[in-house]
């Protein structure tokens, strides 16, 4: 480096040599800021300073624990909600099992029975369940009569539908099983008939026509079972004719009458009827209420009450 260059450099930069002195207050302020920053770092990051390592470890552990606790709490909450729903629903359904026809929970009881039957596929198991339900109906009737209440049509319809369903199930079984099935049906019907008879003897004033009809139906159940035990084929044919008869009866019966004698779809027998399978009447026309082309089949004309006061025999009415 040439000396002249150095001299040039010094001379050219000479105007920058002069600098104001820094205010001691500002220096002190900057120094404090710097030392505070250093202290902050020392406390937070320097191993061995205070309990920094422990604190950091605690923080990490704490976060980890919080995450675990949060996940655990979420899991517990989900399980609790599921349990509450499950237990609540189960308790409600369980409570509904003691309900009687006409009570608010009875619909739930009916639904739970229908669901149980619908998820059972074995004919034997379906028969056992159906027979169990018939026993329940008899118990319900006993309790209603004991309480001095009349038998609602709902209970009667459901009971008759189950009795018919039991016979239908038996008719669809093979010869090897049909006899045993009919024996069971017969046994149940005999016991139930005796129970009804005892009730009527104890409470003669409760002997309304509906109870008497049920008693007659139970005798018919025993009779049909006896026929089937001796001649399954005849029994099957008889059941087939009964189904056809019931189907025709439903088709030709005005809804106002039909509702008193046949079970409705939502509360009685889960077994299908011919009408359900074929929503069209014998004329090949959709079932419609008279004078109301826009209404749904079987709804009737709202302007004339329920629309069933003047049934047209040429047009079938849905029960």
């Amino acid at each position, binding site marked *: 480096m040439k000396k002249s260059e150095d001299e040039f450099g010094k001379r*050219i930069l000479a*105007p920058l040599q002069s*600098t*104001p002195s820094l205010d001691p207050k500002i220096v002190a302020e900057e120094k404090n800021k*710097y030392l505070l*920053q*250093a*202290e902050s770092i020392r406390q937070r990051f320097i191993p061995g300073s205070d309990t920094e390592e422990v604190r950091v470890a605690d923080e990490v552990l704490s976060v980890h624990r919080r995450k675990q606790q949060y996940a655990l709490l979420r899991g517990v909450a989900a399980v609790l909600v599921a349990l509450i729903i499950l237990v609540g629903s189960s308790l409600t359904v369980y409570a509904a099992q003691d309900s009687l026809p006409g009570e608010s929970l009875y619909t739930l009881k009916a639904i739970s029975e229908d669901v149980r039957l619908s998820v059972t596929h074995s004919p034997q198991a379906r028969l056992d369940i159906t027979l169990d339900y018939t026993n329940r109906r008899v118990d319900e009737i006993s309790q209603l009569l004991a309480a001095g209440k009349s038998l609602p049509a709902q209970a009667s319809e459901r009971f008759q539908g189950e009795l018919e369903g039991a016979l239908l199930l038996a008719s669809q079984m093979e010869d090897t099983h049909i006899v045993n099935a009919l024996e069971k049906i017969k046994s149940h019907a005999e016991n139930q008939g005796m129970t009804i008879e005892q009730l009527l003897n104890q409470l003669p004033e409760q002997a309304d026509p509906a109870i008497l009809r049920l008693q007659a139906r139970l005798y018919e159940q025993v009779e049909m079972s006896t026929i089937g035990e001796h001649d399954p084929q005849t029994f099957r044919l008889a059941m087939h004719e009964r189904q056809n008869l019931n189907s025709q009866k439903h088709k030709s019966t005005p809804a106002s009458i039909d509702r008193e004698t046949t079970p409705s779809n939502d509360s009685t027998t889960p077994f299908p009827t011919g009408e359900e399978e074929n929503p069209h009447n014998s004329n090949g026309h959709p079932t419609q209420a008279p004078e109301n082309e826009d209404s749904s089949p079987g709804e009737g004309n709202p302007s004339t009450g329920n629309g069933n006061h003047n049934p047209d025999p040429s047009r079938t009415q849905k029960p």
Partner: protein
Amino acid sequence: MKKSRDQAILVRARRFESQALEEIFDCFSPGIYRYAYRLLGDAELARECMSETFSRFLTALKQDGGPDEYLQAYLYRIAHNWITDYYRRKTPPTLPIESVTLSDLKAEPHRIVADQMSAKEVRDALAFLTPDQRQVISLKYLEEWKNDAIALSMNKPVGAIKALQHRALEALYRILSRDEDFTV
């Protein structure tokens, strides 16, 4: 600070011992401020540069970085980088007459203004240099460092420092020669 002394105080600084850190600040903050002021020409900016230099130094220590020796070179490098960033961010504004800093209260006012005007012209000229050229001649002629110290500070061989210095002065000469009011 000498090399061995730098090493000793840096060991303590890495433990964030207040006394060591205080010594470093007391020893180097005036020089950093001066250096920043000479290049920036603004007291507030120079203060900001000094503050940021020491803050970055602490951050480097926290991250197990920072120098093992030659502390002064390290600190000036931080300051220089800050100044370079400032140059890149913003063209230095024209110095208004009311912001003239009276560095020498005994001097005549017209002389002070003339000095400030010259200082501004030199700073503007420095702004045209590359960062390395600017750093070399600043350390050489303003801070009066030896070439080997500059070489350490810039992590370059002494020969490269001399070359940078030469080219920087040539460039400055060319830049300032265009200014009729400036006597080269």
